[in-house]
């Protein structure tokens, strides 16, 4: 049997060929496949090809080992089930599989922390949005009241309140407006503080979460989107 029998010397389709494949896009207005599912499928095909190639390689090695063993028996050199090399390869496989498990744990933890951050961000956007809306509403209400008061004042322009009764009424109105403005200022302040506190809580929790996660593995950069986290 010649070497390398499971490789064909002719150019064959490799996993990298599959991964690198691109097709021209259809022109607008014509039917074409949705790109995402096609890409996902190509990725699956690539992974499957790599898996098959590796399975085939280890089967090939197994065949070679058994063949050596049989030949060894025929030549009187009693076969040993596992040679020193075999034992080492075996150990490498066990360690590799342990490494894969460790990688998976880290990846899971990281995905979890990613989800937490995403949720925190969404929550923060929601709180900020509500606060903005609420503040807009209060402001508008205050402006409407101010406008009404101004219009009232203008209507009375030139006619200073003649009677005590009228004067008292205007003073009462003024006092009411002042109180209203104080109360709303207070109200806005408390509301803003509350919003800030909620955000702080989230930050603390998130910080705690960041501390508790023991791991790490690489992601793209930093600014380094170009290498990835």
């Amino acid at each position, binding site marked *: 049997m010649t*070497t*390398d029998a*499971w*490789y064909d010397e002719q150019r064959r389709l*490799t*996993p*990298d060929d599959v991964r690198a494949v691109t097709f021209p896009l259809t022109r607008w207005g014509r039917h074409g496949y949705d790109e995402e599912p096609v890409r996902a499928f190509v990725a699956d095909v690539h992974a499957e090809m*790599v898996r098959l*190639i*590796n399975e085939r*390689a280890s089967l*090939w*090695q197994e065949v*070679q080992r058994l063949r050596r063993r049989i030949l060894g028996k025929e030549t009187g050199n009693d076969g040993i089930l596992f040679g020193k090399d075999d034992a*080492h*390869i075996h*150990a*490498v*496989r066990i*360690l*590799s599989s342990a*490494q*894969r498990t*460790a*990688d998976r*744990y*880290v*990846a899971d933890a*990281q*995905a*979890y*922390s*990613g*989800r937490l*951050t*995403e949720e*925190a*961000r969404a929550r*923060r956007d929601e709180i900020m949005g509500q606060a903005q809306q609420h503040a807009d509403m209060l402001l508008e209400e205050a402006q409407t009241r101010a406008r009404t008061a101004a219009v009232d004042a203008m209507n009375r322009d030139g006619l200073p309140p003649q009677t005590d009764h009228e004067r008292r009424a205007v003073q009462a109105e003024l006092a009411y407006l002042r109180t209203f403005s104080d109360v709303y200022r207070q109200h806005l302040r408390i509301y803003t503080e509350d919003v800030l506190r909620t955000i702080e809580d989230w*930050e603390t929790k*998130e*910080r705690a979460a*960041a*501390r508790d*996660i023991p*791991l*790490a*593995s*690489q*992601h*793209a*950069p*930093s*600014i*380094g*989107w*170009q*290498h*990835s*986290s």
Partner: protein
Amino acid sequence: MDVARLKNSFARIAMHGDEVPLHFYSDLFLKHPETRPMFPVSMQAQRAHLVDALVSVVSGVDDLDSLTVFLRDLGRGHRKFGTLAAHYEAVGDSLLATFAHFCGDSWDATLEADWRDAYELVAGVMTAAAQEDEERYPAYWSGTVVAHERRTFDVAILTVHAEPRLEYAPGQSVAVESPARPRLWRYYSMANAPREDGTVEFHVRLVDGGAVSMALTAATAAGTGLRIGPAVGVLRLDTTSGRDVLMVAGSTGLAPLKSMLEQVTRLQQPPRVHLFFGARDADGLYDLPSLEKLAAEHLWLTVVPTVTRGRFAGHTGALADVVTSYGDWSDRDAYIAGPTEMVQDTASRLAAGGLPVSQIHVEDFGWSEP
């Protein structure tokens, strides 16, 4: 050494995908258990780094000059991991054992000799660069955070004092390791030109699930110690071209460009500079006030903030669209930094608009580290 044969056998080995680096590291850790603690818990990214470096070496064999630059950087960069000359031998043995394993019966004495020669060449360049470096610089710089400011939910600005003094050119970056995430190094650009007091600023954006960025934004405070690698990267301000400048920054891609901007303020005859600073929303324009202050102090500087979405009293839309809508930039030197997609998009749109490719400079993180 038969280069064609090496490339051919490497192509076959590469067909086994992730199994190859997995086998390599398992082999290395079995034969030399003392090397395991030099690596992080999860080796997933590490394996990808190794494959990237191998691909760079094998495909770069035809261009020895740039390959040498790459390998020298790689050798220098490995000092911070505690890599010693003895480790190179161990790595070489495991690499050859791995290649032999995946080549199956096509592995023979000639091919083995070819690979051994190739590896000795690579290791020789790396160790030589590391040794030269050792005479002048420490393996890593000890940094202490002197200020930590969380500008937005996602962005923190770290002011770090490095000991000894960190030498770098504006536009360059360094690898940073946080004590909360040992053995994980991430690259960050200095956001300031070198200062008298030896402090540097990093703009760190929180990446969802990003172990290091999360540690640096959320679990870091004044007093935290950091390890810092040597300055790397080829992004530099061309001060000799005489051309005016266009800068396009997406999010914390602002950091290297701001450093270069500070460099411009120190020039005798500063060029005109247009800086486009883009973010997802107005909240993401984390450093706009300081940029606007700079623009108010210097007539040659124009700052154009843009956001992709949401309420904003300025430009909205994709950064590349806003930049190109301003008209003709073909007589400028362009510097672009930020998320890969935005960088590529902007660079190709500018090139299509007539800006010569030789005048487009982008943040280049093209190297990797095994």
